[in-house]
């Protein structure tokens, strides 16, 4: 009995202590939302992914690159091969050198990665007074809270509380560590017209783009969950078989 109590006490201690730094880092506890991809049987909502991609393309891509994604990856969110080809061709991608030794631009192909808004980090910084809009490919995994954090951040712009000074060029955000973010509030109601007719409120857009960002960071989530289910069930069966085999073999010794 004492052993179990001690084990429980130790576990609680560890959980409390290790939860510590996570709370210390976020200024404000990020509200947790329900996401279709959470949990062992979670999947991505394809409609949300497509709306999220639209938000990224029309709003975020002006400043934020997403260099680990290729156009062909969009087949995963429900676009067919022809749509992906057409979409890629909308962009002029840098290529070269040609036979004359010059760099040139050509229409994008599905195998190309998303075109960044700036050719390099320095150019981006120059455009934004020294601030670099981070690449968004892994944002959902690079922040504690993941999609909860990105959604909270996008809806967390508000007036600074009395007495809190926000320097020129920065904006007050409830959930950004330090509360002073260089990104101006990017979303406003009705900014995007969704193809499926969903009303584009800031709330809706931040949820959809957060779903898209999670998929961009972890495109294999559904494969992982599916394979995981098969593996765990198979192993549980094996566990049972070996348990009974062990008992039978040890029956004489005990």
């Amino acid at each position, binding site marked *: 009995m004492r052993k179990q109590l001690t084990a429980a006490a130790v576990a609680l201690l560890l959980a409390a202590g290790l939860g510590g730094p996570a709370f210390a880092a976020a200024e404000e506890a990020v509200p947790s939302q329900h996401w279709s991809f959470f949990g062992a049987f979670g999947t991505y909502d394809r409609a949300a992914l497509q709306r999220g991609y639209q938000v990224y393309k029309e709003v975020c891509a002006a400043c934020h690159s997403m260099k680990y994604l290729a156009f062909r990856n969009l087949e995963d969110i429900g676009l067919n091969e022809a749509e992906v080809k057409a979409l890629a061709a909308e962009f002029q991608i840098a290529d070269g050198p040609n036979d004359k030794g010059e760099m040139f631009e050509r229409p994008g192909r599905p*195998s190309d990665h998303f075109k960044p808004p700036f050719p390099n980090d320095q150019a981006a910084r120059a455009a934004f007074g020294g601030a670099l809009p981070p690449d968004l490919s892994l944002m959902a995994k690079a922040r504690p809270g993941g999609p909860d954090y990105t959604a909270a951040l996008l809806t967390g712009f508000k007036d600074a509380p009395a007495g809190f000074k926000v320097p020129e060029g920065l904006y007050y955000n409830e959930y950004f560590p330090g509360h002073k973010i260089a990104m101006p509030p990017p979303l406003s109601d009705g900014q995007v017209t969704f193809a499926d007719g969903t009303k584009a409120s800031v709330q809706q857009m931040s949820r959809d783009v957060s779903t898209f960002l999670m998929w961009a960071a972890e495109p294999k989530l559904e494969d992982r969950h599916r394979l995981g289910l098969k593996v765990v069930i*198979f192993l549980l069966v*094996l566990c049972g*078989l070996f348990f009974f*085999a062990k008992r*039978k073999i040890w029956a*004489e010794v005990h």
Partner: protein
Amino acid sequence: MTTITKDGGASDTKSRRDFLYVAASAFGAVGAAAAIWPFINQMNPSADVLALSSTEVDLAPIAAGMIVTVVWRGKPVFISHRTAKEISEAQNAKMSDLLDPQADADRVQKPEWLVVVGVCTHLGCVPLGHQGNFDGWFCPCHGSQYDTSGRVRVGPAPANLPVPPYAFLTDTKIRIG
């Protein structure tokens, strides 16, 4: 095996026990085989390599008499816009003159466009275009010569330059692979 059966009812427990061991071992073996598959499959071409497994080429800028080299799956591919002279040379060659007999009609879809993989069938060097005695290619490594249809005329190469799978998307655009 030093197991000591306790009572006379051994045979029944023994067969039940054996089934358990067989079942456990069989499941275990299946599991092990399934577990090995990802380790083998990871060496197969990855998604980005597969995405580049076909290349589209715009034929419009290639003038008659020009040979253009493109890269397909890491290898050179010669696209030759053949002149009328080159076409007739290719079509009129005698089968008995060929080391690897093959009709020109079997190697092209449209006679003015020849598409062949530019890797010598001897030991893999890249032959040089518009050279050699047959108006085709000459391989500097060991002297093999190919004609205007990419067929080998002088060895040591044993076979014609291979024709990759390709299709005309429009009159001026092909997709290789």
